[in-house]
Every structure is written in structure tokens, then in C-alpha cells.
């Protein structure tokens, strides 16, 4: 707990977003979920060719507009005003989800509330709280070729979010490929969860302690990579 306090919230989010950016291969098509995942776009390294898809019907999201460029008809899935890159295309929501469901998106980076050791993801509702809806998340988890979930390693109460089984209603079963938190990078494999990277300032033991699910430690584990 002490270590977490060393970072303020913004810095933690930045650390996660920067590490998540490394998942993006040049030449790929990527969908970034609403919230922290959207921030990943800010850290895309120059020289990487990446096309960002927005499920409201845009392939090729650009930067936020300058004030004089704002078009109210041009937003991303988070309803933020954006621009389109050169070579972009617009299409309907049916075409957009055909693209997603059909496996044409190389990578989706999504937020998470809980992930289980089988790769189940819960990120859309908390029983008892107002249900806002799942938006496109349930389609994305089954469509994109690779699903990376980014989230805090533990919740505000310090409790594990990587669990044996999710306690919250699921977004998708057995859909997550990799989890990136402020503390570690964990892959979902057939044998279970595999710890592949540990963030600066944490030890393997600390990761184990703050993870409810069983963790295999990768033979090629790297410590302090981010």
C-alpha cells in the first residue's frame, strides 16, 4: 500500500497507458475503449503506423481538433470531438461492428473491474448501482484478435481485482489475452495466469500477495520494465 501512495492517480494512469502502448504493433488496427484506454493514444511512439477504430463508425481517429476545426458530427466512441486522419473512412454502426465481430481489429485495449484466471472480464455493471449499459464492450471482447485489459492492480480498498472467479456480472467469458496493471503484466494462458513483467518498485512476492488468482511465474519474467 505504501508504494501505491508514492504515485498520484494521474501518474499511475500514465504508467499503465505507456506500458499498454507497447502492445501496439506498427501497421495494426486498434480499438481503444472509453476512459483510460483512450489515453493510450497520447503515448503512441512516432514512427508507429496505427489506425484507431471508433465503433461509432470511423476508421482512422486523429488528434483532438483545434478550436476552429471542431465538427459536432465528428466524435469518437467516448463522445469526444476528434479529427480524422488522412486515409480515414466513415461507415454505419452495422459495418463498424461487422468489422469488429469479424475479427478485423488486431487489438482492443479495454478497461476492467475484474479479470478471472480463465480470462473472464467484468467491466460493465455493479449490482445495486445504476446500470448504464455495456455499449460496444461485449462485441469487442469477442471480435478483436487480441484483448488487453488495463486497470489498477487492486481496488480502492486494496483488494485484488485479478481473481479466481469474477464476482461481478461478466462482459465476456474467457476473452482476455493480457492484463496490464500499475504493478504487473500478466498473460492468460491455457494453464492459467502467467506473470511476465513486474513494474518498477514491486517484487514478485508483492504481486502474488495482491493477486487472488494463482500466478505462474514466467521463466523469462522481467522485473522493473516500466
Amino acid at each position, binding site marked *: 500500500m505504501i508504494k501505491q501512495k508514492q504515485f498520484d492517480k494521474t501518474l499511475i494512469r500514465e504508467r499503465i497507458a505507456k506500458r499498454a502502448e507497447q502492445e501496439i504493433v506498427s501497421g495494426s488496427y486498434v480499438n481503444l475503449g472509453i476512459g483510460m484506454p483512450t489515453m493510450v493514444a497520447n503515448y503512441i511512439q512516432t514512427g508507429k503506423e496505427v489506425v484507431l477504430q471508433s465503433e461509432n463508425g470511423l476508421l482512422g481517429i486523429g488528434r*483532438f481538433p483545434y478550436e476552429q476545426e471542431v465538427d459536432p458530427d465528428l466524435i469518437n466512441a467516448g463522445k469526444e470531438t476528434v479529427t480524422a486522419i488522412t486515409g480515414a473512412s*466513415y461507415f454505419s454502426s452495422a459495418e463498424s461492428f461487422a468489422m*469488429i465481430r469479424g475479427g478485423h481489429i488486431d487489438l482492443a485495449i479495454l478497461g476492467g473491474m475484474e479479470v478471472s484466471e480463465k480470462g473472464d472480464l467484468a467491466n460493465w455493471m455493479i449490482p445495486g448501482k445504476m446500470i448504464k449499459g455495456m455499449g460496444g464492450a461485449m462485441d469487442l471482447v469477442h471480435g478483436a484478435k487480441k484483448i488487453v485489459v488495463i486497470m489498477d492492480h487492486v481496488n480502492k480498498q486494496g483488494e485484488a481485482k485479478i481473481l479466481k472467479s469474477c464476482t461481478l456480472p461478466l462482459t465476456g467469458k474467457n476473452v482476455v489475452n493480457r492484463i496490464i496493471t500499475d504493478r504487473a503484466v500478466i498473460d492468460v494462458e491455457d494453464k492459467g495466469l502467467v506473470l511476465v513483467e513486474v513494474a518498477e518498485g514491486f517484487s514478485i512476492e508483492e504481486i502474488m500477495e495482491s493477486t487472488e488468482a494463482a500466478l505462474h511465474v514466467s521463466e523469462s519474467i522481467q522485473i522493473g520494465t516500466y
Partner: protein
Amino acid sequence: MKQIYTSFHEVVKDVTDGSTLMVGGFGLVGIPENLILALRDSGVKHLTVISNNCGVDDWGLGLLLQNKQIDKMIGSYVGENKEFEHQVLSGELEVELVPQGTLAERIRAGGAGIPAFYTPAGVGTPIAEGIEVRTFNNKEYLLQTALKADYSLVRAAVGDTQGNLIYNKTAQNFNPIIAAAGNVTIAEVERLVEPGDLHPAQIHTPGIYVQRLIDGKQEKRIEKLTLTQLA
């Protein structure tokens, strides 16, 4: 061939209590603003509304909520609206939440004469309750049925008097599939032009899907203005 209206009041006048409406738009982008205002003014009640979102408290479909004109809402994300939450908790409003891609495909199916299809979205989640699960090539899918509407309300940037429509940028979203899934489709256009003014290969919605047209100025409220600051 098409009915061209000049009064928003007139163009929605025959929408009766208990009708099922589909309404285009994503957030506040591409919503038929004036048609929604006219429905609010008409006071029509007990509507079932199919739309990705439900507006905000004081704009878009939120206006019909405020006025308690909606009995049931089918959408994928309804989080920007306090009145919505209030009516759900009080039991006045029934909600059916559908994954966004499933919603889009169910609407497309409605317009395309496909009664049902299978999709992976929602397998193993609460939305799969009571829904048939079937395995194809070792993967599980849910059976989902088509959605149709008595009236479809859409907004386009340009329309010609034959009903052909072109949408602007991400204001396309649900509009073309909603246009095809209504028994009566009413298109609110920012600019009404003559046949031949639109290039036949650039038309997003062929005129066959549209029964009524009306042009109207758009306010186009911005929900979240995000800017790049000049350095």
C-alpha cells in the same frame, strides 16, 4: 413519389400512442433534433423507443423522457441522463440493454428480412439469460432476433426528393440501418436537393427506404468538447 413536408408538427402527427420508434444517432450526433422536438410537442405517449442512447436530460430523447412519453427503451448505453435513472428506479420506465453490435445487427436484420442470427456477444453474461446458445465450430453464440419499428426517425446531411440520403462523418452511425427498418421512415435533412444532385455511388441510404422528408436547421449540441490547444 416521396412526401415532402414543411411542418415538423405534420410529419409526426400520425405517430400514435403505443408506437415503436427507432431513432438514429450516437450520443447527440446524428439525432433527428426537430423530429424529437415535434414528438415532445405532440404529447404522444407509451412509446417504445429503440436507439443506441437516450439523449441527455434536456436534449434529444431526454426531452421525451422528461415528458414521460417513453414506456420502454431498447439501447446499449443510457448513462448520460439523470431522469432516466430516476424513472428506471421508480419502475416507470422499462429498459432492455443490448450490446451495441448486437443492437446494430438486430436493426439491420429487421430491414433486411433476416428474422434471426447468431452472435458471440453476451455469451456467459447476464444478457444471455433465457436466450438460446448454440455452438458453431466449437464456439458458442447467442440467437438474436430482428428489430423493426412502426416509425424510423433519421437525420441526414443531404437528401434528395427521391429519398436518397447522405450522412456527414460520424453522424452516419445508426441512421442508415434505422432508415431501412421502419415501416414509415421519416428523414430530417439539413439540405434538401433535387434528384441528380447526389452522385449515385455516394448515396448511403437509397431512396426506397424513405417515405417522408423534411428539411430543418440543426442545433448540433456538443456533449464533450475536447480540443488540441495551439502551442
